[in-house]
C-alpha cells in the first residue's frame, strides 16, 4: 500500500500586512498506508500549519493534498485530528458520549452498535471505568486517551496528531507513547504525528521528516527501522538521535 496521503508543492504564507511569514514552502510528502509518520521540527517551523492544512482547517496557498487520491478542501471525518490541548473533549458529554458523538453525526451504525463500538474504544484506552464520567473529572492523560479513542472509533483514513503528548508529564507521556504504538500495531492506522521532541520521534516514527524554520520546508525524510519497543540507549537509538539533532540545527537563530 502506498500513497494514502500525498502532499505536493504545498505553499502557505501568512500575511498580516506588517509581517510576511512563509509558513510552508514547497512541501512534498508521500505517506503510505499504515505509516506512523513523524514530523519533527522546532516550534514555529510550520509543522502544525501543515497538519492543519491536511485536516482542512487551513488552506494552502498552492499545492495539492490528496487523501486516497481525493483532494482535501475542508475538514472531514476521514482525517481526524487529535490536538495538544486538554480542552478538546466536549465538556457537556460524558467520555462515552464524546467517543460516540462523531459516529452519531455520521450515522455510522445503528444506535446500539454505535454504543458498543464506542465502549470498545473507551476500553481499548483503559477507561472503561470512566465511561460515564465528564471530562472535567479526568486527568490530562486520561483526556488525551479519550481523544485518541474518539479519533480511532471514527475509523479515519489518516489520524492526525498535533503534539498530543506535549503537555503531559514525562511518565504519562511514555505510557501513552507505548499505548499508541500498540494501538497502531493492532489497527495499522496511517498516522501523521507532529512533535518537537527528538526522542518521541524516534520512539514512534516509522519515518521521520525533519522540518526547518522560516521558510518551513522539509529538510530530509529518514527511515526509522529500529526494532520496537524502542527506548533511549537501545542499539542504534543514539545514532539516530545524533543524525536528527544535526539536521534540526538548533544553533540557528530565528
Amino acid at each position, binding site marked *: 500500500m502506498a500513497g494514502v496521503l500525498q502532499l505536493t508543492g504545498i505553499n502557505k504564507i501568512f500575511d498580516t500586512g506588517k509581517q510576511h511569514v512563509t509558513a510552508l514552502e514547497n512541501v512534498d510528502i508521500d505517506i503510505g498506508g499504515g505509516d506512523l509518520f513523524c514530523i519533527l521540527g522546532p516550534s514555529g517551523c510550520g509543522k502544525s500549519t501543515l497538519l492543519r492544512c491536511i*485536516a*482542512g*482547517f487551513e488552506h494552502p496557498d498552492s499545492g495539492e493534498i490528496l487523501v486516497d487520491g481525493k483532494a482535501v478542501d*475542508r*475538514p*472531514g*471525518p476521514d*482525517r*481526524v*485530528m487529535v*490536538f495538544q*490541548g486538554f*480542552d*478538546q473533549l*466536549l*465538556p*457537556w458529554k460524558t467520555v462515552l458520549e464524546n467517543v460516540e*458523538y*462523531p459516529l452519531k*453525526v*455520521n450515522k455510522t451504525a445503528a444506535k446500539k452498535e454505535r454504543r458498543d463500538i464506542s465502549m470498545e474504544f473507551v476500553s481499548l484506552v483503559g477507561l472503561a471505568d470512566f465511561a460515564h464520567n*465528564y*471530562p*472535567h*473529572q479526568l486527568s490530562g492523560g486520561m483526556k488525551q486517551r479519550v481523544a485518541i479513542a474518539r479519533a480511532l472509533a*471514527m475509523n479515519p483514513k489518516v489520524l492526525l496528531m498535533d503534539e498530543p503528548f506535549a503537555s503531559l508529564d514525562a511518565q504519562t507521556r511514555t505510557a501513552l507513547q507505548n499505548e499508541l504504538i500498540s494501538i497502531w500495531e493492532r489497527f495499522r492506522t496511517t498516522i501523521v504525528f507532529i512533535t518537537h521532541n527528538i526522542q518521541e520521534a524516534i520512539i514512534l516514527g516509522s519515518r521521520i521528516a525533519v522540518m526547518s524554520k522560516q521558510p518551513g520546508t522539509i529538510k530530509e525524510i529518514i527511515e526509522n527501522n529500529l526494532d520496537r519497543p524502542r527506548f533511549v540507549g537501545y542499539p542504534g537509538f543514539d545514532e539516530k538521535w545524533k543524525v536528527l539533532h544535526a539536521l534540526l540545527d538548533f544553533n540557528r537563530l530565528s
Partner: protein
Amino acid sequence: MKEIFRKRVLFILLLAVAWESAARAGFFPPLLFPSLGRIWDSLKDGVMSGELVGNAVFSLYLIITGLVIAVILTVLFSSLAMVSKNFDNFLDTAVAVMNPLPGIALLPLAILWFGTGQESIIFVIVHATLWPMILNTVAGFRTVPVIFREVGQNAGLTGPRLVFSIMVPAAFPYLLTGLKIGWSRAWRALIAAEMVFGTAGVSGGLGWFIYKQRYLMDISGVFAALIVIVLIGILVEDLFFGIIEKKTVRRWGMMV
C-alpha cells in the same frame, strides 16, 4: 443547597421576629405597619378568594409570553450576528443604545402604539429582557474556544448543525446567565408596568393588585402581594434555575 435553605429559613425567622416586635411595640400606626397575623390573614384571604392567585397567574402569563418572544428574538438576532459581520456591528450598536434605556421609560410610547392592553406590558418586558440576553448570548458565542468548533467540523458538522450541536452547549453558561438576568429584569419591568396601568384601572396582575390595595388602604394586602412576589422570585431563582444549573453547567464543570 440544604445549607443555603437553612440559612434562608433562619434569616426569615429573625426578620419575622423583628417585624412582629416592631408592630406590637406600636411605634407606627397599625394601619401602615400591620402585624404578621394581619398580613397572614390577607394572604390567606387573597389566596382563598382566588384574587391573589389569579393576579399572580396573570403576571406570570405576561412575563412568560414576554420572555418567550425575547428568547426567540435573541436566538434570531444572535445567529444572524454570527453569520454576518455587518449585522454583528449593527447589533452591537443597538445593544449599546437600547440596553441602558429602562423598559418602563418606554411605557408611555407603548401605550400610544399598542393601547392600554397586555400588548404594551409585553412590549416593555421584551424590551427589558432582549438586550441583556443578546449581550450575553453574543458574548457566549464569541468565547467558544476554536477547538470545539474544529472538533465539530472534524466530526463532519457544518452550518446550523454546528451552531446548535456545538456553539449552543459550549456557550450555555452564558446563555443561562442571560436568561437569569432576563428573568429578573422582566419581573421588575412587569410590576412597574402593571402599577402604571393600575392608574388607568384597566388591567390585572400583581403590580395592579398592590396598587389597588394601597388605594383601598389595605396595607396588609399590599404586604401579602409583596410576599407572593418574593416567593415566586425564590421559586424561580433557587429551584428552577438552581436545578437547571445543577443538571448542566455544574455537572459539566462549566461554571463561569
